[in-house]
């Protein structure tokens, strides 16, 4: 198995996530999921793995929606993929058949057309498709369900808002909400590279007031479990033929250095030289060079640059909090308050709110014992270097 930062992995080479995936199948029994986390944390890989090995009774449809620009394209594709998947079970979509009439099955490309040649209304296509799926799933058996793995939902909404206007994007959101909750045998698993709240924020400025995600379970996958991260690093070291003083130590060092994030493990292993044995020191040194180089594509500067955009007048306060946590490691609310108050005066509720926002935006994570820490060890490492702490 060779390192492949950013590339597409075969499902069997996506290491780890088994416990999370198992719990996600359990959640899907009851409701749909919105999966949100940092870019490159491995959300798509989770979908790929679930799609490749569905839990018993589940049928899956997986699609990256970033290539659709209109609600009709999205609806058409949903129908088509459902049709294909059900076709494998020799089932068909009755209501859609009625809608399409003689044109049924003849349409290969483009939008679904009605018998009179006009484009089928996208909401009707989605409504009938989902109703048909529900009916077919029920007919197949009490435990049969279908899940749609929809990646890049925020891109879809943004594309539609740009092409057809924000109103249509809002309608799509509402339809997604009702589809996600109105059918017992159909679930959605939505995700995207960027947080859906960014798109919702834009749409709210245009008058959108609904909460399309509030019935969905929010899942934040986070980094790999440490044991899986170390296994991945060891497998890549072997696959890339990296000489090591001690492979187990090197694998553990790599996993720890990048905070157990699969993408960064691939990336760091791909940077290790093959002409000299890797060691703890050399790995640390290569990572240091990588993330501080002028020409690096790790884009960790993003975490510093976006503070002003995200927190406006609170940027300075956010810096104080992050600097303190970068230096000291995990801290309780009281300890953070003490550290911050040594430099400025801040109201407790204000600070709590900011800590909440920093956690929502994946700067921080709050542990079970109520300690705040950097969400990713790699960001803390970079923060200390960048801020000379």
């Amino acid at each position, binding site marked *: 198995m060779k390192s492949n930062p950013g590339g597409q992995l075969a499902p069997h080479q996506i290491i780890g996530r088994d416990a999370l995936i198992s719990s996600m199948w359990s959640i899907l029994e009851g409701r749909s999921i919105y999966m949100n986390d940092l870019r490159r944390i491995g959300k798509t890989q989770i979908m790929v793995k679930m799609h490749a090995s569905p839990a018993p009774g589940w049928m899956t449809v997986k699609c990256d929606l*970033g290539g659709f*620009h209109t609600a009709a394209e999205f609806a058409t594709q949903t129908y088509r993929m459902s049709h294909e998947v059900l076709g494998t079970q020799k089932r068909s979509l009755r209501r859609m058949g009625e809608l399409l009439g003689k044109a049924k099955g003849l349409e290969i490309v483009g939008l679904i057309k009605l018998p009179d040649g006009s484009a089928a209304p996208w909401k009707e296509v989605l409504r009938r498709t989902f109703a048909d799926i529900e009916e077919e799933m029920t007919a197949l058996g009490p435990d049969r369900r279908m899940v749609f793995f929809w990646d890049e939902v925020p891109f879809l909404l943004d594309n539609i808002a740009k092409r057809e206007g924000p109103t249509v994007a809002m309608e799509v959101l509402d339809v997604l909400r009702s589809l996600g909750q109105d059918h017992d045998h159909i679930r959605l698993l939505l995700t995207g590279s*960027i947080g859906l709240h960014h798109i919702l924020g834009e749409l709210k400025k245009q008058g959108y007031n609904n909460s399309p995600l509030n019935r969905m379970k929010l899942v934040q996958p986070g980094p790999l479990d440490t044991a899986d991260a170390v296994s991945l690093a060891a497998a890549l070291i072997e696959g890339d033929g990296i000489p090591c003083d001690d492979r187990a130590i090197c694998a553990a060092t790599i996993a720890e250095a990048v905070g157990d994030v699969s993408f960064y493990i691939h990336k760091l292993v791909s940077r290790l030289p093959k002409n000299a044995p890797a060691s703890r020191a050399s790995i640390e040194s290569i990572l240091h060079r990588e993330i501080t180089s002028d020409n690096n594509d790790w884009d960790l500067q993003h975490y510093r640059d976006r503070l002003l955009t995200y927190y406006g007048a609170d940027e300075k306060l956010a810096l104080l909090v992050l600097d303190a946590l970068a230096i000291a490691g995990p801290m309780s609310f009281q300890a953070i308050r003490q550290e911050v108050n040594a430099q400025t005066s801040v109201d407790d509720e204000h600070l709590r709110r900011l800590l909440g926002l920093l956690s929502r935006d994946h700067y921080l994570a709050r542990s079970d014992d109520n300690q705040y820490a950097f969400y990713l060890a790699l960001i803390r490492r970079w923060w200390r270097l960048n801020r000379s702490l």
Partner: protein
Amino acid sequence: MIDRPFLSQFSPQRTDPEALEQILVQRHDLLAESVARVRESVLTANKHHLLFIGPRGAGKTHLITLIHHRLRKQPDVGKAARIAWLNEDETATSFLKLLILIYRDLTKRYPAEFPASDLQSVYGMKPDIARETLGASLLRHLGPHTIVLLVENLDSLFKDMPEVEQRTWRAFVQNHPVFATVGTAQSLFSGVSDRDEPFFGFFDTRHLDALTVDEAVTLLKNIARLNKRDDLLDFLGTPTGHARVQAIHDLAGGNPRLYIIFSDFLTRESLNDLVRPFEETADRQLTTYYQERLRWLSAQQREIIQLLCHHPHPIPVKAIAEGLFTTHSTITNQLKLLREMRYLRFHERGREVLYELAEPLMRLSLQVKETHDRRPLSLIVDFLRVWYDRRDLEQRLGNLDAASPIRAYFEEALARLDSGEPNLRHRLLRAGLGELDPLHCDDSALTRLWCLANETKDQFDLSWVAIALMARGKTAEAINVMDEILNLPDLLGGIVALVLPLRGLAYARSMRVEESITDLTRTIDMESQCPLNIGWPLLFRGYMYAEVSKWDFALADFKRLYSIPNHPAAFGPIADELPHRVVEAIFGHTTETPQWSIKITGFFDHVVRCKVLVQVGEALIQHLPKLAASPLNHAAYDTWADAWASASETLAFEDRQRLEIPLRLLRTGIAYLKNKDEGRLLVLPSEERKILREALKLPPERIS
């Protein structure tokens, strides 16, 4: 008939790939690794997306051509892959247009599999329909194969393609994992490195390093071998050849393409063979090349380059901002981008950052347009100044016909040399040495040092050669160089203080004792005129005095050495070695007991302070064979031991204890020496006997 392979300077894909294999330098590992990754993409469900980054001429197309070549040589990959190699000058403003480019290339390469009619059929459709139709057609015809998409200038493609189209492209690749991508770009671009962009983190990016001078020499040697140019191959092994490569390196900034362009010039000795073809090259190739490079930049970036073209040396950011009537903050970001794209390089001076062109040859693009009336192009004048030394320039000018059009170049080059400005050739040769450590340089580095010093006859350059020669044990050659240095006029005090003791050491190595003592004495005498570390000169002079049995002088130097704070006499290997010389010198100094005692007592203060009393004890035992070899009688042996014993009485209790065992071993050793009876040793415990037997060079004790 031309029997040498064609090496395209601007389109390596048109060169025979086997020739490209032969001239490849620096990137063998990268190439093998990249081919392995594409191979994995073709034969498994893992799909890699590689992106090579380097400025124009950095060898990106060379690399991609070899990846293509090696893949085609693998039959299993050939069966499973369908290669689409996009024309580097074509672009696409939508994913549909990119699909068209891909499909068109596949049609050309695999006409039976990808019918051209499918492509023709989509023209005239609505773009969304056309995209879907062509995408479906591509996937249908592709079947189980993987498309290896070779796409150059990916940065340009991203620049031209709106974000929503990039999302469509990415979604297509994600929904249909049938692509492996090998892309190139001139620099890292936001489309792949900005976290908000669809393709963030999608590519495995690799930066192509510029060639070092040694790699450039290897490249040129490879070209010479390929072209069966033994003369060029031999020439590259000479100091002059290396100097000329260094010159190109500094003008070209490590850009492989320029080495290939210049490889033809290296051995040209006739001026007509050099200047005229250079002018032609400048006119036909380099100017176009650099103008093309400038066209890639934004207007403000071009203005920065234009400004720096008029400055032959690095200038600070403030001066650049003022020169362009803009602010420091506006210019800083552009400078960073230009630096990342390797158009510029920077130097830090305290808190200030200074910028200059990464490739001085880039000035050519402006000079060709700005130089009128057939006046010499300044850059060619510079080239000549770097190519030839003064003597060469004068000689060649003298040989030129009065009406020769190239006289102007040589007159200008000589005028610039006489103008008092720093010698460009020497400056570049020196810069090429970088942070070379003369104590650890290989043959190639030594050759470069020689080359520079031979030309400049500069006291610093020659001193580096001397140090390097000494470090490599070439003492006789080092002495010659140092003789030359010390005969130079206007020698700086610092150089004298460096070279004189070094020559003293070299003489010592060659056992030219008197000359060594003379140089070292001159060095030590300089202490009164300038602050100087005279520790080492004292040490070596002491050794030299001991060598010719001038024991008093040796002892005086050693004693003075011990009085210098923090000198290695107090620690490290010298701390172990020097006591042996001291014991030897005291012993050789006299046979009179009182004299021995006085000398020993006089040293004790110093060795106690330097904490080397233990080493003195060790030296005393190790000295026993010399005692035995001396002409002294047995009574004198005892006198020697008594002298040490009585001197040790003057020591503090703790220090006296440190000498207790050595003195016991000395006495026992002497007892043995008197009648060679090993039984005398039995008064000692076994560990001490072992030490003493070793000192006396006796075989290990037999155990019965």
